[in-house]
């Protein structure tokens, strides 16, 4: 059965698409019978976690899958013409011309040894039948449209001479330049910072609408789609489990998976005192897909029938379609409110676990010939305090110095100047747990290492301590003699937490601890950290670009911009009443999983990129992107000072 909106005539119809990957361990069915249709000018979002088959599905449409992936069955009808049956040569006439594609990673998706002009002009010449000069003019026009400053000159730049955000703009200009009728955007903003993400999404929406093109937007971020999609397809284990208009999906989702996903996302105005809803378990291994519904092992309302029969999409209220045997999904079961979160015991008074005074870290590049050394000011005079039992959240875009600050706290880098006092021991949870483990060591050895290094106890005592830690982080003790490569991402991060806790630290620094994890696993780790924080009374420094998570878990928040703290205060205050224009812009850029709220938000994304930390401006570092900057801002650097009772901000025009 095919579901479609009745906006206009159908542009693309996908029927029973199947995609398989032949691996050494057997055939993986990545896309397992997907059917849907897209109307002319429609914006459809395909949402799913990694391994859900969403990208494989999108790449199958134009047969852009790399070997060993192959389309194993089904039809892809573009205006009634079946692309699945076309020859490679015939398909090349469609690629770029009829269907444009924007890929995930702008850093690797442009040819590094070809100028942008060479990559853009030739397809335009061929697809639109223009001469070289006209094609070049057309390319420049598109670059200008996507907001490349000085496009006529920049067109002859190489991709490496541009920032990630700029490259993604070039990708979009390329995809749109041959006036396609469908644009496939495969996670186009995942690799980008939140403010750039907001710019890119807004631009994609505007430009496709202007050109009358349809857009298929593939993402793992359910919140993001509320902003622009007409229709949403939610994929799980290679199948569409729910499909329908964006309003209905967010207002009254029908499939248990969609329902659970929406609950796991911390909200901007949500309560901080309840635990995050979490989906238990892991997505199924696609090599051994279970019979029946693939989600049933993680589903609260699964019945016997779910184990036997595979549910097909069926009509639901609100114009939705869901593939589930239980009508209404989780709403069929009595709603159990999530239990309250245990409050952290923050020691009153002035006892500080961490005290950072005027911390500066400069990285110097040396050159044999020239005398002027280039200096990167990664951390540029930071003052921060963390009380006993308190969680400090540090947010900011990449390059703001938050990770350098973490490394300084752990003593992994030497400060250029300034002081750090830590009462007790600091430990770290790294961003990518896998690379923070020695691949040749078993889990037990990894967790034991800090104890062994410190010669803590004897062998038996250490083994007992490891068992204890493993229980604390909710890991199955049978995993202890496995290797890191044999665990899933979530399990690995639990191991990382256990290792960080081994020596009873007074403060744990977590650098983007959930960014490498899937949405459904993320909540598990956040809940774990929140529990530990309450149970153990240790302080946390939680570094993340994910503002909603930081808001949920942190007591106080420091917002960093180019090596400096621009705003600091209690988490709720900073979020609900931001003082600094940069904080405001950051919060505005965060996608909210609610189309109604999204529609009411000022959708004016922050302009421009982060300036290079190589040559910082004289005045306020944010002045170049700030909507309220004046001459004062450009000449005089604002200092962090008190606003309201508990907040501090570095801005001449705060309040």
């Amino acid at each position, binding site marked *: 059965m095919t579901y479609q909106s009745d906006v206009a005539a159908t542009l693309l119809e996908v029927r029973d698409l199947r995609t398989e990957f032949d691996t050494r361990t057997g055939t993986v069915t990545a896309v397992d019978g997907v059917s849907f249709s897209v109307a002319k000018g429609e914006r459809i979002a395909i949402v799913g976690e990694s391994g859900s088959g969403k990208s494989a599905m999108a790449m199958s449409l134009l047969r852009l899958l790399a070997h060993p992936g192959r389309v194993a069955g089904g039809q892809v009808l573009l205006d009634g013409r079946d692309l699945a049956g076309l020859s490679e040569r015939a398909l090349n006439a469609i690629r770029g011309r009829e269907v444009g594609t924007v890929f995930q990673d702008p850093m690797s998706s442009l040819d590094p040894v070809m100028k942008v002009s060479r990559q853009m002009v030739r397809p335009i010449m061929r697809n639109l039948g223009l001469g070289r000069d006209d094609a070049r003019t057309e390319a420049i026009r598109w670059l200008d449209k996507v907001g490349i400053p000085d496009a006529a000159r920049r067109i002859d730049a190489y991709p490496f001479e541009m920032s990630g955000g700029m490259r993604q703009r070039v990708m979009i200009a390329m995809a749109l330049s041959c006036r396609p009728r469908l644009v496939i955007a495969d996670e186009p903003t995942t690799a980008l910072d939140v403010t750039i993400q907001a710019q890119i999404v807004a631009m994609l929406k505007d430009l496709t609408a202007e050109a009358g093109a349809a857009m298929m937007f593939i993402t793992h971020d359910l919140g993001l789609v509320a902003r622009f999609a007409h229709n949403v397809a939610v994929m799980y284990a290679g199948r569409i489990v729910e499909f329908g208009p964006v309003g209905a999906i967010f207002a009254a989702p029908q499939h248990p998976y969609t329902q659970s996903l929406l609950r796991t996302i911390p909200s901007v105005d949500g309560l901080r005192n309840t635990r995050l809803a979490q989906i238990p378990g*892991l997505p199924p291994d696609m090599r051994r897909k279970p019979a029946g519904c693939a989600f049933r092992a993680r589903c609260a309302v699964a019945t016997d029938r779910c184990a036997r029969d595979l549910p097909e999409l069926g009509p639901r209220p609100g114009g939705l379609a869901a593939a589930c045997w239980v009508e209404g999904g989780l709403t069929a079961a009595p709603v159990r409110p999530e239990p309250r979160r245990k409050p952290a015991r923050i020691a009153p008074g002035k006892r500080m676990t961490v005290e950072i005074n005027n911390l500066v870290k400069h990285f110097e590049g040396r050159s044999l010939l020239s005398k002027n050394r280039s200096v990167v000011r990664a951390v540029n005079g930071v003052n921060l305090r963390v009380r006993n039992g308190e969680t400090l959240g540090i947010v900011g875009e990449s390059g703001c110095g938050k990770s350098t600050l973490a490394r300084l706290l752990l003593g992994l880098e030497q400060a250029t100047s300034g002081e750090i006092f830590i009462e007790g021991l600091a430990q770290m949870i790294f961003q990518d747990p896998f690379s923070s483990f020695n691949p040749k060591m078993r889990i037990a050895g990894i967790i034991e290492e800090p104890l062994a*290094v410190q010669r803590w106890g004897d062998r038996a005592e250490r083994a007992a301590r490891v068992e204890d830690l493993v229980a604390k982080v909710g890991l199955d003790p049978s995993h202890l003699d496995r290797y890191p490569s044999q665990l*899933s991402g979530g399990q690995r991060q639990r191991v990382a937490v256990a290792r960080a806790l081994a020596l009873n630290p007074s403060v744990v620094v977590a650098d983007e601890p959930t960014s490498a994890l899937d949405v459904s696993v993320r909540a598990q780790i956040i809940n774990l950290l929140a529990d530990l924080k309450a149970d153990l009374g240790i302080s946390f420094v939680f570094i993340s670009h994910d503002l909603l998570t930081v808001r949920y878990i942190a007591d106080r928040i420091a917002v960093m911009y180019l090596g400096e703290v621009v705003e600091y205060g209690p988490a709720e205050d900073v979020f609900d009443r931001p003082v600094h224009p940069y904080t405001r812009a950051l919060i505005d850029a965060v996608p909210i999983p609610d189309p109604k709220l999204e529609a009411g938000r000022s959708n004016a994304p922050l302009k421009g990129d982060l300036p290079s930390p190589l040559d910082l401006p004289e005045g306020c570092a944010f002045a170049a992107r700030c909507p309220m900057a004046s001459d004062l801002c450009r000449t005089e650097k604002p200092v962090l000072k008190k606003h309201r009772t508990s907040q501090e901000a570095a801005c001449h025009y705060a309040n």
Partner: protein
Amino acid sequence: MANETADIRQPRLRLPALSLPRDGVWGNRKVQIALMILGPILVLTALAPLLPLQAPLETNLRATMEPPSIVHPFGTDRMGRDVLSRTLEGVKVSLLVGFSVATIALVAGMIFGTLAGFFGGMIDRIVMTIVDIFLAFPSLLLAIGLVAIVGTGLVPVIAAIAMADVPRFIRLQRSQVLSLRSRAFIDAARTVNASQGWMMTRHIIPNTVAPMLVAASIASANAILVEASLSFLGLGIMPPAPSLGNIIRDGQTYLQQAWWISTLPGIVILLIAFSLHFLSDGIREELDPRARK
């Protein structure tokens, strides 16, 4: 995020003892093929004295330059010596050279490469300058030059070939250590104040061993080829002691009348080198799943 599920491996099954292993290094097809070639060669070489063959140095002037037959599977040479028996004796030399050179290069490379990579600074600069000087010579030419000075024979040949390989191994080990040093798990160990010795023995060295073994197995194949070349040029193992290189040299003059003297031992060299390469390929595939096709 992409490998959330991809990396979960199932615990390995225990297979019945007699069937061919299907998992691990022994289950790799390339390793199996390599061992199927190398195994018989090794067995024949070891059993050579027991085989009904003429002794390698025994001449028989009544049966010179006889083509391959049942009695002389590889034929006989100008002095009526059995080419197969000489070839097997040569294989012994080849394998000894290959094994010795690989071991020397491995040990020296591990020691100096680790020191240079781990401590950096002055040690690194001195070691790498010396390495660069040695790497300036094409390997065979370095060996030729050294043999020219030190003289011919088994030990000088091994030393000369190892001289060319050691710097390559130092370089490989150093680059491995350097890249490991910046890995996050070293940072993790530093946050608990692990000592330099701890990091070197627990984290760095264990992660460098496998690639070094792979390189050593390739180096042993190359050493066998270089020894053969030296002996062929008259700069390696000197006759009448047989080596694959000098057997081929002997046959060079009689190429038209007795093709077998030169060609058959050549095929044996090829088989040995081939199986050693296959072995290293197979080991690498097993250690690094990305190397698989």
